[in-house]
């Protein structure tokens, strides 16, 4: 079982510029010992998936405050599947009215945190979901390749 830190990819999606919430979550995640790759604004489903692959992350956090998740999350989930990382947990936070929480869950999103959710809870969930994903993929990397390096060298 890999002992490396949980690695989280945090990203905005689409043109939404509100980044105050995601910056808070990034800070709390880092305080909790999570390695965070924060790619900021103006990301597309494509760019998010590319970064997730390149950085070999365990969990993805998306912030959406102006509703574009309705168009872009389905694309993101699709893209993840196409790239064989469809079971990476995706967590969505932001301005999400109650009926959309159901919509996102049905897409396969791991958890939804509407604005006002305690950040502590978001961090706990991401660590637990990311840890689960990491251990499931410990023997085989996310793309199905065996992980040859002995634990000592995994950093």
């Amino acid at each position, binding site marked *: 079982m890999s002992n490396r830190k949980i690695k989280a990819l945090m990203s905005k999606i689409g043109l939404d510029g509100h980044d105050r919430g995601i910056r*808070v979550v990034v800070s709390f995640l880092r305080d909790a010992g999570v390695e965070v790759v924060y790619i900021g604004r103006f990301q597309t489903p494509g760019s998010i998936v590319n970064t997730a692959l390149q950085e070999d992350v365990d969990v993805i956090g998306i912030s959406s405050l102006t509703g*574009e998740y*309705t168009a872009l999350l389905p694309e993101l989930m699709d893209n993840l599947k196409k790239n064989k990382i469809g079971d990476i947990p995706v967590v969505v936070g932001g301005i999400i*009215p109650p009926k959309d929480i159901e919509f996102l869950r049905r897409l396969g999103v791991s958890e939804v945190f509407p604005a006002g959710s305690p950040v502590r809870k978001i961090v706990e969930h991401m660590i637990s979901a990311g840890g689960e994903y990491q251990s499931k993929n410990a023997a085989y990397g996310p793309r199905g390749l065996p992980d040859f390096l002995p634990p000592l060298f995994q950093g």
Partner: protein
Amino acid sequence: MANKTDNVEEGFLAKPARLKTWSNIEVEESYAPEDIRDQDYENNIGAPGRFPYTRGIFSKMYRGKLWTQRQQMGWGLPENANEQFKILIGQGATGLAWYRDLPTTLGLDPDHPLAHGSVGRVGVSFCCLEDMEKAMDGLPLDKISMALINASTTNVAILAAYVAAAEKRGFDLADLRGTLTNDPVFSYFCHSAEVNPLDFALKVVGDVIEYCSNNMPLWSTMYVSCFYNLRESGELTAPQEVAWGFAVAMEFIRAALSRGTDIDSFAPRASAFCQAGIDIFEEAAKFRAMRRMWAKMMRDKFKAKDSRSLQLKIAAQSTGSQLVGAQPLNNVIRVAYQLLGAVLGGAQSITCDTYLEPFCVPTPESSRLALGTHQILAHETSIPAVADPLGGSYYVEKLTDIIQAEAEKILDQIEEMGGFVAAIKNGFIQKELDRGVVDFQKEIENGERVVVGINKFAYPDEEDVIPGGLSEIPQDEIEIEAIKRVKSLRRNRNNNLVVNALNNLKEKAGKGENLLPAAIEAVKASATLEEIMNTTRAALGYSRDPFNMRDEVPPFK
């Protein structure tokens, strides 16, 4: 199992959660004459309408004219927006704040790759003259105060389109009243640095001030949005809001002055767009401190001669981040307190958010209630009858001094770094913004700061009712239609005319001339928003597309 009635004694004996202001300024049990004994009324406070305008920029204040009840609406296609504006005017709004969707705000046509999912969602989608005409159809542009909210650099195209549409309807530009977001620092942080490179943005600031000084005297061109928006972005304190806003304003003033523009030609129409927060007395004191600081800065630092240059016009909006998603009706009360603070503080224009702010754009029902908030205060109470009713309060006069002193300290610190732009470049601003939001969240999570419905007095989700429902925006249909329209426009217009107009714009931009006249011509030739922005950017040495996703807008591939 605890008996529910056990809580009663605890509630009965409860003490207030906060013994500090929202900005963490400690407050005493009570205040008395000796707390303000050293204050100099004649020279340092002044009567309403008298230097240094602490008590208000007009002697009659709201007796002369009520604050502008500026409400916001606008989503979807231009004709949807037109309908919504007419609803607002019908409800009694005296000002409109017109929000564009994100693609439009950032200067992108609806078919730009990054626009997907955003078209028409949080504002109106617009990209050409025809769109602007549809949106403004039938509106009395000379009677209603219009606020155009968008990224600073896109003012080139948006203001051009507004002017072109108004001219076509036969309005005299000199009769148009309104304002636009002419604040590149705000845009840099809150919209995108890619769309608002600071130098480009500062040039547009200068061009807009110059153009409007010459053609649209009733337009407020120096509209510093940073007070509200940076505070929102960083959960800043009231003194920080004041200091940072002033620091940004000083950058603009210096930019305009360095072009040889006379201070008194634009300062009279300068306005500060600020937060209207829930901590009533702190907010009122904040506005009073701002007016006094502005008057002295204009007179002593920038040598303004016109007394109107010394009178800071204040526009305020309900602080959105103070509104909560749980138990949304509570937001009606929060907004009422926010409005009260701004009115007691003497603001000239105020926007009340709807209780749906944490969820979606305003619905007609929630908008009506927001307007009612204004109307009740304005007409059922006698509050507007007296200028600066808090003047003379030992507490508020003391708090005004405290906020000013703290703000001046911060402002000096920023000036020592070389000004606000320098403070951005050396990382100070981003660090403070990050620190502010993290500290604030920690205060909430450890219970130090109470938010009703979130960390205290919370109810289970099932008991939460959202009265009136949410905005139902058929965004996917809107996007499809908007894309169809822009593609059809590009096919059917006279592309030779467009090419000529864009070449003209490119030439004028390259020569460093004012961008507005050539942009207006390009709009009239049916160039789109993105085409105008791309041409301008390229002429000034930037990438055509701020996001480097498409080099040429079709059909110019």
